[in-house]
């Protein structure tokens, strides 16, 4: 019996992912929650690696685990004295939110497993962490190539979105 290393890796990463996501939600201190968020981002990057999406994984680490987490920590730091000892409390409607979420999860999982497609292609084994070839080169061409079929224009528009977001953030955040 050979150990299916990618499968084991999947389960491990999935458990870390779900566990730290739960921790983000339930941690009473906001700083702890933010740290667990880093774990969520890292584990997600692991999932991307398993799915042969190396570029996404790297971007995930750089942007999420790096930039977004730092931003969030800054925000926590700048607003920290607003909360008392419990800086990350639940609101009064947590039970309703929980009910909705459980039912929604049940619905989605039921749909995934019972849809007509679930029986066919979706049940094929995925070649996890395929060593034969990554998709980085292909993705690079798709994003930047001026000659072949590519998403260069949407990509540039996305950069404009980012620019606008930066300007907007400055405008909103600056002192009167």
């Amino acid at each position, binding site marked *: 019996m050979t150990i*299916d290393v990618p499968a084991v890796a999947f389960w491990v990463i999935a458990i870390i992912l779900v566990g730290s996501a739960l921790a983000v939600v339930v941690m009473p201190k906001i700083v702890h929650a933010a740290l667990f968020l880093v774990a*969520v981002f890292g584990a997600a990057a692991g999932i991307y690696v398993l799915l042969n999406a190396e570029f996404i994984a790297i971007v995930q680490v750089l942007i999420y685990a790096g930039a977004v987490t730092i931003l969030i920590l800054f925000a926590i730091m700048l607003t920290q004295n607003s909360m008392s000892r419990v800086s990350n409390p639940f609101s009064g409607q947590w039970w309703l939110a929980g009910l909705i979420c459980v039912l929604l999860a049940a619905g989605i999982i039921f749909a995934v497993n019972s849809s007509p497609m679930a029986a066919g292609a979706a049940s094929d084994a995925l070649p996890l962490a395929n060593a034969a070839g990554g998709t980085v080169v292909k993705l690079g061409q798709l994003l930047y190539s001026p000659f072949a079929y590519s998403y260069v224009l949407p990509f540039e528009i996305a950069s404009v979105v980012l620019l606008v977001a930066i300007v907007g953030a400055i405008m909103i955040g600056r002192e009167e």
Partner: protein
Amino acid sequence: MITLNHFLVLGAVLFVIGLFGALSKRNAVAILMSIEIMLNAVNVTLVAFASAILNHGGKALNGATVDSSRLTGQIFAVFIITVAAAEASVALAMIIAIYRRRNTIDVGEINLMRW
């Protein structure tokens, strides 16, 4: 054996955890973090689909022919990450602005849309 369904269920579970956080937390920053979790859940799903289509030899799951080399799912994920970064920066700026003005980021107390 890990199939596409595993990833889809993982994405679904992550999504509802994020949703739960977004609907039940009072700290605006916590809500923002929950939304980031939801975005990640969607990314997981999209990348899983891209991988499955690539693996399936250019056949979409419903049997239609697609150009598997286009990696649509991954492209989507890239754009989502881009937008998420933009969203995070603007949202945090807003949280800080609100904090500066009202001295709180408890969404239960921010109810200007009340009747």
